């Protein structure tokens, strides 16, 4: 495999992880614009642990995910008191606070960035991305996945049905934060270097776009969104400086034609051969 293709596939795998990090809160009705902040927490903490304690990279990445998840759990309670645009602004501010804090944290290199000695190759990154994908798919095949969608669709009725709406919202935010931390850890250990500038608001917005573009109603949506957002700019590389213009134009057209995203829940049911008798008739 050429270095170029391997590089693109590594980016795709990391973007898939990021997409699932954003998918969980979005599926519960939360627009989390602080995903990059949690990715930074996971990336830096896993890098620090593997550099300082010589912990194996995979274990460091798992610990980084746990640290991001723990911080996500701690901030979920106050942050999720806000809704809609205010929640988006609060999570955006959270991401910026994390980035600004890292910029001034000399122990991890501050503005100069932080080299990571341990290295993971493409197969490891791909295996972790596959593992995250399977875990999220399994999670959404449980009552948890139905409950998250119910909370998204109608909080009041979900509450009257006995669902602990707050607990499900916090769980979605926390698990999403942990997955973002794992994505940050993969990035740090593959590229052997992390810097605060990478974890900016534009990364958070791109990640949320993967989900909105792919579709928020099914677990397949984030995967498709991440694939399109990673591969389409590469496929348009032949058109030199126009490629991002073309990329943006394609995105706008698709979002106008399919505001619900590339794939919906009903389509996934049909794809899985679960078409109802009524529809099949």
């Amino acid at each position, binding site marked *: 495999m050429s270095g170029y293709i391997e590089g693109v596939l590594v980016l795709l795998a990391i973007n898939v992880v990021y997409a699932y990090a954003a998918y969980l809160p979005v599926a519960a009705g939360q627009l989390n614009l602080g995903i990059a902040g949690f990715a930074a927490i996971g990336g830096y903490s896993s890098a620090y642990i593997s550099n300082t304690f010589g912990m194996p990279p995979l274990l460091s990445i798992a610990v980084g995910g746990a640290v991001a998840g723990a911080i996500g759990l701690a901030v979920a309670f106050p942050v999720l008191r806000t809704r809609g645009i205010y929640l988006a602004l609060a999570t955006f501010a959270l991401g910026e606070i994390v980035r600004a804090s890292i910029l001034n944290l000399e122990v991890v290199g501050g503005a100069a960035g932080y080299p990571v000695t341990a290295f993971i190759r493409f197969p490891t990154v791909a295996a972790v991305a596959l593992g995250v994908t399977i875990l999220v798919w*399994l999670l*959404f*095949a*449980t*009552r*948890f*996945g*139905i*409950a998250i*969608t*119910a909370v*998204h*669709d*109608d909080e*009041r*009725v*979900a*509450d*009257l*049905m*006995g*669902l*602990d*709406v707050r607990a499900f919202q916090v769980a979605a935010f926390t698990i999403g934060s942990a997955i973002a931390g794992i994505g940050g850890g993969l990035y740090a250990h593959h590229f052997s270097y992390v810097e605060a500038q990478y974890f900016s608001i534009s990364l958070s917005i791109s990640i949320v776009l993967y989900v909105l573009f792919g579709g928020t*109603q099914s677990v397949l949506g984030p995967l498709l969104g991440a694939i399109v957002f990673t591969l389409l700019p590469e496929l348009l590389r032949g058109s030199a400086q126009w490629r991002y213009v073309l990329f943006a134009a394609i995105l706008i057209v698709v979002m106008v034609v399919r505001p619900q995203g590339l794939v*919906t*829940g*009903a389509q996934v*049911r049909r794809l899985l051969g*679960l*078409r*109802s*008798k*009524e*529809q099949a008739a």
Partner: protein
Amino acid sequence: MTGSEPLLTFENVSKHFGGLSVIENLSFSVRRGSCTGLIGPNGAGKTTVFNLITGVYPIDGGRILLDSADISKIPSRRRIHQGIARNFQNIRLMPHLSALENVLVGQHCRNSGFFGVLQPVNLWPGNRWREEARAALNDAGLGQYERTTVGSLPYGLQKRIELVRALMAQPRLLLLDEPAAGLNPSETEALRERITAICRDRGITLLVVEHDMPFVGALCAEVVVLNFGRKIAEGTPDQVREDPLVREAYLGSDADELQEQRHAS
């Protein structure tokens, strides 16, 4: 089985929204195993009564008793665990879930612990909770729609799915808010037969809000009539039908004067 003791009791319950009194010193009871109708003109406070029973709104005065236990302070999320389930005047299914998944939501109160939440209900067909939900849909004649996203189903089917969802909680008290609204006469008759059979077979106590008086008369042994948040009559459907206060409330004459005369006598 209809008993003489009440399952649900309203004791001088009041509710205000700002300066507007929507329920005023309301007292009535629903006997265990009975089908009771709650009727009144638009804006009488019927749906508000349901919202008070299910905890959507806190009460401002009085008590609500279920089986002699005060449930007024129990959070709305926990009321379904007390055996209270309901449908909604305007259908409120989860539009992005399939019919089967909506029914699975109705089971949540019976399967809500940590391991309950992680039940793989959508992973393989043999799951017991999934099979129970499928059987309930089949019993209601809705089996063919189980994997259809409910947002794409017609109104009548959505209403039936909402009833199945409420029944999945295995309630003691079922609150139905205008279950016959929008149905044609044959559908209404089928619904009445189904509700009667369900309540009889499962020992469910029913409180139903409905504008269709023949439906209420055929379904309910007792009726409570509200107007402007106050009880103006109660009794059998025939008794309330003949009540001058009820007639005036519906036909729009001077109900207040009649009520004062009644209190004076």
